[in-house]
């Protein structure tokens, strides 16, 4: 089998070279950095882990916050998804539009804005309510992560709930079930695999989250922030590598569970056709509590943006709210970082989406030795927390032959390979819908594999390519965890500058810079929408 596949490949040297090239690239820029992280510390460093109080505390904190935030984000997500799909709650369309906003924002933005809104000098807590409330700590983190990650859960469960035909609900009502009983015996059991899948996905994000804890957790350290503290505070690379390695264990476990256990089952559940039967009216004692709940969450989301804008244009946060443009001078002063952010992300997203789509084509259409391995490695970065990726790059590419320390290249490379799974999964999904006979027809007419890809598959994958580009771009432009270990003065990007400004107390400047970054992101989104129409599929999760 293998031998025959190789024999065939040898007759298509270009295809063979492409496959080898992809393997080398993924090996060098995904596998190798991870191995560097795992192998950098000695066995002794790992064995002394339990003796280090800070490590143990960070591990416990991580464990607690993953459970708390996953539970709350999944619950909120489920209630939202349920509201969108199965109720007649007023304004639910509006709530849905608001609910996806956090997906477009830098991960640290929510935490940062909540400090402005609900912190010690908070606009709501102090200025409006007169309370000196301290949001810094685990509870602030919990709130921020809930708001940051519930949209992921909501989108996954929306798909699952949509696939449960309303006719089932009608049938159950017909048999006399209603209200709570209907929910408990019909809707929830059918949605359960979706809930499990959503929870695992949220847990992966919470576990890897760096932006929110670094902003708002204060002394409540978690593994990613403790790793960062090791390097930034003590220059202790070994400690950071140990913490990252430990972080990898649950990350990898969650990833495997999500992909190979729930992912499979979910796939079969979601295939059902959406049947358009109008929904039975939701009773008032369900409708209004859900309405109030959605309104509260929407308020919490919108307050993020209010806080940010207010911060960007106020003279002195907490005491002097006169409008000013002085923070925008800081934005101009940091123009280089902003330009870096956008340029690096655009280059990375272009390469990343092309690479990802090409890989998805090879895996779904070509037979070659190592196909399963390529599939696995192309997905793998989705399992790797940003800090692991970042530390891996800083360890792997800081000495000849590949000394990329402080270069734009290292940032761009990290963004490319960290985002490959986004485009890859989109491509695989889309290729399932394209008849394989199209590619075969091209091959039959004399086109080699790569020409077939270029002439036939790629044009049909255009919408996937665009959405892969957009998602990769957003993730790249907003990432903090990956680049925080890689930036120097030379290749600094905006998110890093924002982190520093916020940490040093320049909150107005941080808010203004974040706003500027958001505006740039929106411009790219708008342009891609203009160029490629509405069918850009965003955030296929």
């Amino acid at each position, binding site marked *: 089998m293998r031998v*025959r596949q190789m*024999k*065939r490949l040898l*007759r*298509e040297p270009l295809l063979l070279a492409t496959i080898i090239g992809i393997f080398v690239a993924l090996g060098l820029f995904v596998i190798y950095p991870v191995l560097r992280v795992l192998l950098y510390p000695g066995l002794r460093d790992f064995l002394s882990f339990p003796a280090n109080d800070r490590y143990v505390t960070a591990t416990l904190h991580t464990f607690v916050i993953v459970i708390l935030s996953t539970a709350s984000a999944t619950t909120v997500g489920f209630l939202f998804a349920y509201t969108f799909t199965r109720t007649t709650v007023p304004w639910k369309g509006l709530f849905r539009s608001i609910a996806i906003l956090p997906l477009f924002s830098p991960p640290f933005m929510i935490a940062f804005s909540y400090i402005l809104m609900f912190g010690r000098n908070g606009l709501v807590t102090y200025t409006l309510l007169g309370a000196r409330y301290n949001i810094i700590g685990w509870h602030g983190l919990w709130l921020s992560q809930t708001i940051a990650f519930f949209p992921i859960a909501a989108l996954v469960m929306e798909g699952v709930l949509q696939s449960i035909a309303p006719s089932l609900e009608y049938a159950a009502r017909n048999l006399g079930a209603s209200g709570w009983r209907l929910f408990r015996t019909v809707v929830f059991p059918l949605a359960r695999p979706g809930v499990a899948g959503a929870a695992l996905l949220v847990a992966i994000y919470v576990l890897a989250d760096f932006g929110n804890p670094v902003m708002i957790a204060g002394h409540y350290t978690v593994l990613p922030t403790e790793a960062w503290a090791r390097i930034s505070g003590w220059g202790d690379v070994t400690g950071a590598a140990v913490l990252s390695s430990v972080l990898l264990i649950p990350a990898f476990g969650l990833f495997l569970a999500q992909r190979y256990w729930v992912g499979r089952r979910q796939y079969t559940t979601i295939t059902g056709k959406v049947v358009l039967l109008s929904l039975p009216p939701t009773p008032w004692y369900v409708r209004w509590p859900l309405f109030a709940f959605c309104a509260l969450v929407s308020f919490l989301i919108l307050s993020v943006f209010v806080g940010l804008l207010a911060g960007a244009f106020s003279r002195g946060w907490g005491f002097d709210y006169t409008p000013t443009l002085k923070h925008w001078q800081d934005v101009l002063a940091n123009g280089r970082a902003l330009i870096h952010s956008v340029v690096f992300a655009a280059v990375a997203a272009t390469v990343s989406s092309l690479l990802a789509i090409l890989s998805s084509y090879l895996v779904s259409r070509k037979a070659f030795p190592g196909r399963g391995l390529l599939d696995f490695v192309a997905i793998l970065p989705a399992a790797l927390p940003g800090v692991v990726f970042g530390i891996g790059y800083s360890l792997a590419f800081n000495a000849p032959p590949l000394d990329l320390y402080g270069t734009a290249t290292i940032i761009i490379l990290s963004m490319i390979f960290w985002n490959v799974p986004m485009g890859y999964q989109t491509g695989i999904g889309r290729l399932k819908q394209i*008849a394989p*006979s*199209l590619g*075969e*027809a*091209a*091959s*039959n*007419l*004399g*086109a*080699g594999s790569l*020409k*077939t890809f270029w*002439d*036939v598959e790629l*044009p*049909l994958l255009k919408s996937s390519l665009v959405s892969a580009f957009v998602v990769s771009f957003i993730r790249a432009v907003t990432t903090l965890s990956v680049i925080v270990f890689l930036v120097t003065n030379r290749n600094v990007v905006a998110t890093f500058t924002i982190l520093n400004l916020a940490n040093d107390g320049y909150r107005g400047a941080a808010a203004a810079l974040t706003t500027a970054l958001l505006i740039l992101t929106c411009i790219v989104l708008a342009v891609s929408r203009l160029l490629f129409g509405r069918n850009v599929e965003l955030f296929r999760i």
Partner: protein
Amino acid sequence: MSDAPVHIAIRHLTKRFGAVTAVRDVSLQIARGSFTTLLGPSGCGKTTILRTLAGFYEADAGDIFFDERRMNDVPSHHRHAAMVFQDYALFPHMTVFENVAYGLKVGGVRGDALRQRVGRVLADLGLAGLGDRMPGMISGGQQQRVALARALVMEPEILLLDEPLSNLDAKLRVTVRAELRQIQRRVGITTVYVTHDQEEALAISDRIAVMHQGEVVQYGTPWEIYYTPQRVFVADFVGTANLLRGRIHEVEAQRFTLELAGRKIRVESPGKGLRPGEEAVLNIRPEAIEIGSIPPADPGPNVLEGVIRTHTFVGQWVRYWVDVSLGPEAAPHEFVVDVPDPRERGILEGRVFLRLDPRKIHHLQGA
């Protein structure tokens, strides 16, 4: 036709998908310029053979030769065996012209030569004027022609067609298949055609390979397949069979008799290799049975009496299902009888007499 040199040779081809053996030890020799059909029920392995010829599947065992050249390791895009897909596989993002031109462009044909060749094929297939349309904007029949044009424009030596007519409605199917045959004759291209429709296969082919569960059970001209099927499966799958299972009674040089529940059925053909006492299966086609409401003047051995159970009238002929009681214990045996041009005699009813023409009964090997 049989004098033409072998163009495609399939030798001991086996193809498995996991535990399923889709094609089992198939050997076929296909003559240059011939129209050969792979016929069989769904799932018997026809598509698998065709796709192995095209190079989309690799043989697990056995070899494929085009003109003495072993093709097993030649990738599909170097095989020059143009294929028409069952779903047409037209590129949805290219116009009709671009679809047809695609293969030529890949081959480096440009400019006027390209336009001329594509234009000629489009005109030949009645597609002139549709060149600028997208495939989604033309009818199913036109799409089918575009798919054919896209293959023919390559002037390939071999044309592979996988149920190309199955998505057309019945009338169109008949017209298009006649056109297809005409074009094939004119161009003289070696064609391998896949269908599960026996009538289509009989109508269009020089040779038919009847397939059953991954094996070729008979390979011959349509005439041979219809009149001298070698297996019960073939007799039953191609046309309608009236099977008579009995024991050989007597064997003479030019005739033999079969004993069937005490009756003797006479067959006027050489009973080569048959021995009295052995079990045998005979077949007679529905149109080879005479039917009448009065006993024939000479009640020979092959006259049976029966009762019409039901009939169906389809215009050019009428088909009767007749129950014949062969003995007191035996369950009635059902015969299917076709009477062409029923206008004169009207529809028969009730008790009838059947006469099985002894020259038109055929002995089947391997029950």
